[in-house]
């Protein structure tokens, strides 16, 4: 799993986020004598309109994006697994209810919902991650539901019922361990979409103003005109790197779980 070139990208993400957290505060501070400088040895990716080093700014945004990705993956997984498991195992009106809820996000573009919800409920990193997680939980729920629908017919579930296991115990200890793999893969993909959506929010001015965020960086440097292309390009490349990296993590997990292909 670690030998493919695709595995390098998740590693780069972690290194970037660690650098953003561990570098001393002084490298992030503005240098008003070096405003809008072209890339040089002193500032590898140049400086922005406030004289801040673009490379350092981009690194400082990495933990934010990683946090968003992780939180979106977590919230979409928790909601999606809970909803999908209940719908697939219990069936009936629970299934109908969860079905309508997932239809909702197949009808309303998730980004529209997130845009309005974040604008109204607040743009803190955690709030927007939860909202994005809710909007992306539908796809996880559908996959878990499909798994539960087939697994609940199997003999091991029938025997668990026969020996008197409770419904929650059957769901959590018997079926879930067999059904969770597609949900984990989907969560990695949700993390990638989440980073993208969050950057889009930042670009539209709906991210936490106290946090370094790539989308916001692009829009503030874009507003300054096209002469500082490096300060737009660098956070853009960082967003792409994260999205591709998290998607590739999903692919790796998929391949890892696909036992038939491994042997």
């Amino acid at each position, binding site marked *: 799993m670690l030998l493919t070139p695709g595995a390098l990208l998740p590693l780069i993400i972690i290194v970037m986020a660690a650098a953003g957290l561990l570098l001393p505060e002084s490298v992030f501070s503005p240098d008003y004598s070096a405003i809008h400088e072209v890339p040089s040895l002193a500032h590898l990716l140049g400086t922005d309109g406030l004289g801040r080093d673009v490379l350092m700014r981009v690194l400082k945004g990495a933990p934010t994006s990683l946090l968003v990705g992780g939180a979106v993956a977590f919230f979409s997984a928790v909601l999606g697994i809970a909803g999908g498991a209940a719908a697939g195992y219990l069936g009936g009106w629970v299934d109908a209810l969860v079905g309508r809820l997932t239809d909702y996000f197949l009808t309303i573009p998730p*980004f529209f919902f997130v845009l309005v919800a974040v604008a109204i409920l607040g743009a803190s990193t955690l709030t927007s991650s939860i909202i994005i997680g809710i909007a992306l939980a539908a796809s996880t729920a559908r996959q878990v539901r499909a798994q539960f629908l087939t697994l609940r017919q199997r003999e091991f579930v029938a025997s668990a019922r026969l020996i008197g296991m409770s419904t929650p115990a059957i769901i959590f200890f018997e079926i879930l361990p067999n059904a969770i793999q597609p949900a984990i893969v989907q969560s990695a993909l949700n993390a990638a979409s989440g980073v993208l959506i969050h950057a889009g929010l930042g670009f539209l001015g709906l991210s936490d103003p106290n946090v370094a965020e790539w989308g916001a960086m692009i829009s503030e440097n874009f507003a300054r005109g096209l002469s500082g292309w490096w300060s737009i390009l660098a956070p853009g490349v960082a967003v792409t790197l994260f999205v591709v990296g998290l998607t590739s993590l999903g692919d790796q997990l998929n391949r890892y779980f696909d036992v038939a292909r491994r042997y």
Partner: protein
Amino acid sequence: MRIAASLAQMAMLLMFVVLTVFTLVHMAPGDPANLYLGLGATNEQVAAFHHQMGMDRPLPEQFFTLLRQLLTGDLGTSLAYRMPVIDIISQKLPATLMLMAAGYLFALTVGIGAGIIGAWRQDTPVETVVRVASGLVYAQPEFIVGIVVLVMATTYLPWLPIVGMGASDEKGWAAVGTVVLHLIGPALALGIARAGIYARMTLTAMLTALNQDYVVAHRAAGFSERRIVLVYALRNALLPIITTIGIEIRFLFAGAVITEVIFSWPGIGRLIFDGILNRDAPLIIGVFFIVAVLTMLINVATDIVYALLDPRVSKGTRASTAGPAATS
């Protein structure tokens, strides 16, 4: 019977869409009256504003009034524009649909075309180029592609109008030409990433199809390679792409918001963004409602097209028409 059930389900879903947006906009802190009347407004003026907008009624009553309005095709009156929401949306919607159609057409033709060429020239540098190029663009968010297109166009194609939709005083073909020129930039921005996805999907599906027994049989029977690739393999490779159209429409709407903001394209993406900035509840609800209706209609259309193309589906095996992905 199935159609009636689907219609009832769609109506329920629409009501649910309205309910959630209604709840959201009423959770917003602050009073729109302060925004629209200014801070100097007297209590009487604020009360009159509330009464005029029906905001002095209990929330459930407001919600059912809204539903009744929607049933008659009335989307209420915008707070910021002071005109019927339906008029504003019908003014802006064509621009967005045009942008989405142009972007999608670009994505489909370039993506599928590149995929076919890549599969045709299997195991040559051409396939590698298609793979690498599609891999580079598919994860690019609209705001990055949009900015790159904007920068490139203003630098290298200064004659190309890139911002807005053009003047409205032109008539006939001149007006059409102006709009088409203005459309190129935003449509590229909206379509490039999708083109990457379609190139990948087509390439994979074509390569799978080309290694199937029936292709070998066709080759043995002496059909030309062109006919095998463009007719037999392509037909099977296109099916999975058609199923994604219903899903893609949501991403196109989402991409339209950002593309329209970057290029000042006067569509409903910008409209909802302005609606959010202006705390314009009726406008936000109206745009959501129309977008939901459109997405549903396109989903139904996708299902029908899919059933026509794939005889296995038309036997009534698919349960829901509300969303093509709900059953897959």
